[in-house]
């Protein structure tokens, strides 16, 4: 039925600006549940999803920060953070989950070129 292909989800929106961050994660979880080869990249404002101690109690929104560790539980093997986006956001690597890999523009280009399905959110 399903053949294994590779997916790359590019998440480029901040966590609470809209539904994009959530939609990217939901679809990555679904692809992983179908035992596909899934990679995930946080880029542009998407790196803000990785900030520690997101507190949504007052806003009453669903906490995106708490959904991100589930990528690992769903066996999304390669989770990347776009280094230039981090720099633009003024974030240091030390703030971020250490099992996530950093990538630059060149590596991102290679990843996009070698992945079967690239989906941008």
């Amino acid at each position: 039925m399903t053949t294994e292909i590779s997916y790359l989800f590019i998440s480029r929106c901040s966590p609470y600006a809209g539904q994009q961050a959530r939609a990217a994660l939901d679809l990555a979880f679904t692809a992983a549940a179908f035992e596909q080869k899934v990679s995930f990249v946080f880029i542009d404002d998407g790196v803000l999803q990785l900030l520690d101690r997101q507190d949504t109690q007052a806003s009453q929104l669903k906490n995106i920060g708490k959904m991100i560790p589930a990528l690992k539980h769903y066996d999304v093997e390669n989770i990347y953070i776009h280094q230039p986006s981090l720099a633009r956001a003024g974030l240091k690597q030390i703030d971020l989950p250490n099992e996530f890999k950093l990538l630059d523009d060149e590596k991102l280009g290679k990843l996009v070129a070698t992945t079967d399905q690239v989906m941008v959110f």
Partner: protein
Amino acid sequence: MKFSIVINGAPWSSPSALSALQFAETVLDSGHDIYRLFFYQDGVLNGSCLCVPPQDEEDIPARWQALIESNDIDAVVCAASALKRGILDKAEADRYDKPGHNLRQGFTISGLGQLIDATQQSDRVISFVI
């Protein structure tokens, strides 16, 4: 070539949905096939049969329906996205004890797995972001 198209935008909030519709029409006019239309996020609002646009504006949901029915296209609205936005078919309305249903003919409610399937069965998947 076999295309699938992902529609993320509501009919009138941005040009996204109309662009997707025009693209879908052009795909077929050019002799290609559409494997599936997948309506995700606010895009599920394209599947409402209750929209009444002013006469001088495009009736985008009606145009989707015409395209779907005249070409026998598989058109799926994402279940999680649809239910929370009040897009229901009769089965879901009954299940959740709601007073009405509004899913347009030609559309079906199904899960995100249908989008993963579309990415596997199509030569190209084109997403129209919001």
